[in-house]
């Protein structure tokens, strides 16, 4: 008798809670005479015992105590989930549970390809059925990999998607738990999904199919054939073939891969009319068994149908949450996205930035300024939209690399993988190097400094300065030469602050590659390359976007100045500014300015907890950035306190001793640049810029993620 595992044949109604929704549904399907791949289930008590004995329960609680979920940004959820996943990877399954799993595998599943899937209690009920919340691992063979995958499935109880849907899932350390299905993998020659009721038309059923395994269809990498059936009769109402049928997903030694389909397959749709009839009949039966419309996954091997999953159809209505879920891309998808970004989008963006030529704004009349603002805004909004649609999802390349790195290396620091991605010659670092060069010239030449203070520019310095402006242009932060010169003088007074040289990154790289089999080396190399591109572009795209935004804001500012001369208030929208500049008699609508509530002065905050984004410890005077010009008051050794460090403002980072940021996350620009310079940084401090005042003595503890504030009266 096993305490922690149960095979499909033995699952009965009383086990529903112990085996979770997915395993219980599969057991019902099996009992009703349908074929399901053989499986056993690691029950929820295994998860509970593992949590208590490893001390993970307390560790998870501490991690969750860092910040209220409701105040977390998407990236913070991913960070929390990454740290939790790493905790699971670093703790072993108790031996008595492992022994039961090993015995079951040895008895029935030795040398077989397996799928390790989640089965959470309450999951796949008619109220909480969400696809893509928890993880599955396909084609796992070795016992060590099976045990590892079980831990990863447990960890996915705390995936970023689960945190996002925490309310719908009632996610909670005390009550949330997870069973795991260990299932034989059936290598179907065709697979697919069925929605027994089309969410957009209740009279219809939707059937999709691909050659090979289902993974490509679910991830969106392989376009399927699609049939619409009449729900009452099963008659085919419509068939839509994919644009091409040239690829499918097949097994490789470990995991799956995309394969080129042979020509004979690509000409024919994967399902015959008989197949469709069979699938229709099974769908109706399952709907009757479960008494509600079903979302079914299936595969066929040599004409035999296997049911892989059946759960109630629920639709996700929240657009923002769906957008977030769409950020998670597969390796293949990211490779395609990279080509699009590097070969098309970035060159187009640079061209657009160049097309916004330097204009002597003062020489333009009001109508011309209006046209210019309108044009520049259109260009900016176009790129802002592309940024959200393509550039942000590409940041997932870093995350994907981090996931694989942590799984292979199991480092104590879940962000160790970042060392392998740095030194990618970020544009912002190149820009800072150029600034340092100018500052060094000032430092070494007292006369030059005096001249600059009098705004006399000449000789080599002027040439280098012009080169800087030409290379990096104006940005949304640096809009005039005087500000730039002030910054250069401040930098010249600072001790040299170079980026960290990661000497050990080469040996880390060797260790990383050594964890892959010979036939996986190419994949590992491509993955590292993708991670580096994602890291570099995450910063660079912002620099380009910042240049475009800078030009737009510059023209907008000129427009506002003209209107002030006409006694028109400043707080009007860009649309109104454009209109008012065009029509001399037009009186623009004044926007209501929302009052930012004052932070209570009755209580004084002394210590705050955020995320330890860059290790180190520093104490200094706070410089709070509330508007762009504040950046130019930053002094060497200050603690930079801001809402969000954007790539366009990172030129002050070499000056500061530490960074406190309201926006949370470990892969955000502030964190990335702080690690590049080895400066302590704590992110995710709500209200940072309201709580901390200029001049407060602030200590940034980048090891523990703590900020200590000594108020200056």
């Amino acid at each position, binding site marked *: 008798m096993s305490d922690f595992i149960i095979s499909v044949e033995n699952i009965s109604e009383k086990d529903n809670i112990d085996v979770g929704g997915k395993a219980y549904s599969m057991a019902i399907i099996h009992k009703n005479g349908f074929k399901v791949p053989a499986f056993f289930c690691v029950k929820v008590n295994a998860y509970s015992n593992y949590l208590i004995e*490893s*001390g*993970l*329960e*307390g*560790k998870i*609680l*501490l991690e969750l105590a860092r910040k209220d979920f409701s105040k977390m940004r998407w990236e913070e959820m991913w960070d929390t989930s990454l740290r939790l996943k790493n905790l699971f990877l670093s703790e072993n399954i108790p031996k008595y549970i492992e022994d039961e799993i090993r015995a079951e595998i040895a008895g029935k599943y030795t040398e077989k390809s397996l799928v390790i899937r989640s089965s959470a209690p309450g999951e796949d009920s008619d109220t909480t059925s969400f696809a893509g919340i928890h993880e599955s691992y396909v084609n796992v063979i070795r016992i060590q990999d099976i045990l590892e995958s079980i831990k990863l499935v447990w960890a996915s109880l705390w995936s970023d998607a689960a945190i996002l849907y925490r309310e719908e899932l009632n996610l909670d350390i005390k009550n949330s738990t997870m069973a795991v299905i260990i299932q034989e993998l059936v290598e179907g020659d065709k697979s697919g999904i069925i929605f027994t009721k089309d969410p957009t038309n209740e009279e219809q059923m939707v059937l999709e199919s691909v050659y090979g395994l289902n993974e490509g269809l679910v991830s969106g990498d392989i376009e399927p054939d699609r049939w619409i059936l009449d729900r009452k009769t099963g008659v085919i109402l419509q068939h839509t073939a994919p644009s091409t049928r040239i690829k499918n997903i097949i097994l490789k030694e470990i995991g799956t891969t995309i394969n080129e389909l042979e020509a004979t397959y690509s000409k024919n749709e994967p399902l015959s009319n008989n197949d469709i009839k069979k699938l229709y009949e099974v769908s109706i039966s399952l709907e009757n068994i479960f008494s509600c419309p079903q979302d079914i996954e299936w595969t066929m091997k040599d004409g035999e149908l296997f049911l892989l999953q059946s759960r109630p159809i629920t639709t996700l209505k929240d657009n923002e949450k769906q957008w977030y879920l769409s950020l998670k891309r597969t390796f293949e998808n990211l490779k395609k996205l990279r080509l699009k970004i590097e070969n098309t989008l970035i060159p187009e963006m640079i061209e657009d930035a160049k097309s916004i030529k330097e204009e002597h704004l003062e020489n333009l009349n009001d109508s011309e300024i209006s046209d210019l603002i309108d044009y520049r805004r259109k260009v900016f909004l176009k790129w802002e939209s592309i940024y959200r649609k393509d550039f942000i999802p590409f940041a997932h390349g870093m995350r994907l690399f981090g996931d694989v790195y942590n799984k292979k290396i199991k480092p104590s620091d879940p962000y160790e993988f970042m060392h392998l991605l740095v030194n990618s010659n970020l544009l912002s670092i190149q820009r800072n190097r150029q600034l340092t060069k100018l500052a060094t010239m000032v430092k070494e030449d007292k006369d030059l400094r005096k001249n600059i203070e009098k705004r006399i520019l000449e000789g080599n310095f002027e040439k280098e300065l012009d080169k800087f402006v030409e290379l990096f242009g104006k940005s949304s932060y640096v809009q005039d030469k005087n500000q730039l010169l002030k910054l250069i003088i401040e930098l010249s007074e600072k001790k040299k602050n170079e980026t960290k040289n990661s000497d050990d990154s080469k040996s880390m790289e060797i260790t990383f590659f050594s964890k892959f089999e010979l036939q996986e080396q190419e994949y590992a190399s491509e993955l590292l390359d993708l991670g580096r591109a994602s890291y570099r572009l995450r910063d660079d795209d912002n620099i380009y976007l910042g240049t475009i935004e800078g030009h737009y804001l510059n023209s907008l500012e000129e427009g506002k100045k003209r209107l002030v001369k006409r006694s028109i208030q400043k707080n009007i929208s860009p649309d109104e500014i454009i209109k008012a500049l065009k029509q001399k008699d037009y009186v623009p609508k004044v926007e209501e300015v929302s009052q930012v509530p004052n932070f209570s002065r009755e209580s004084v905050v*002394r*210590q705050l907890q955020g995320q330890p984004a860059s*290790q180190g*410890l520093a*104490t200094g005077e706070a410089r709070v950035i509330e508007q762009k010009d504040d950046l130019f008051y930053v002094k060497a050794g200050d603690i930079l306190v801001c809402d969000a460090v954007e790539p366009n403002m990172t030129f002050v980072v070499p000056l500061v001793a530490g960074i406190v940021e309201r926006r949370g996350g470990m892969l955000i620009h502030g964190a990335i640049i702080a690690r590049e310079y080895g400066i302590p940084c704590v992110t995710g401090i709500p209200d940072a810029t309201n709580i901390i005042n200029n001049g407060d003595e602030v*200590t940034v*503890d980048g*090891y*523990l993620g*703590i900020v*200590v504030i000594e108020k200056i009266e």
Partner: protein
Amino acid sequence: MVEMSPKGIIEYLLNNEKLAVLATEKEGQPYTNLIAFATTEDFKKLIFVTPRFTRKYSNILSSHNASIMIDNRSNELSDFKATKVINAMGTIKEVDKDPILSEIYLSKNKHLHDFFYAPSSALMMMYIEKYIIATNFQNVVEINIDV
């Protein structure tokens, strides 16, 4: 419940309670806060971890004398009869995070592994001179510890 000896109460509370109240003092101003503690086998020393940039750490630097209260109250009326309280009094100093002490601390507080090893946190040890044990609301016993 079986009547416990004062030494039994010390052993019981030190082994079973996870959190304690630490009282420190600076320039005549007492200051208390919660700590996660562990104790040596002979119960003569208590250890806990604190970030260095905290008031308690700064207080301890200026005055080593401190007190730690450990109790098993449950916030019920029955506490007046059932709660057992010990006060450990002595001096506190920062000590190295050596393997023996890390084993003592982390076997009781597994989840504080990262907190323990953070370079910005300090391991503190109280050298106990005296325990004061209070039971049944007003019964108080003192036990001096031989150093």
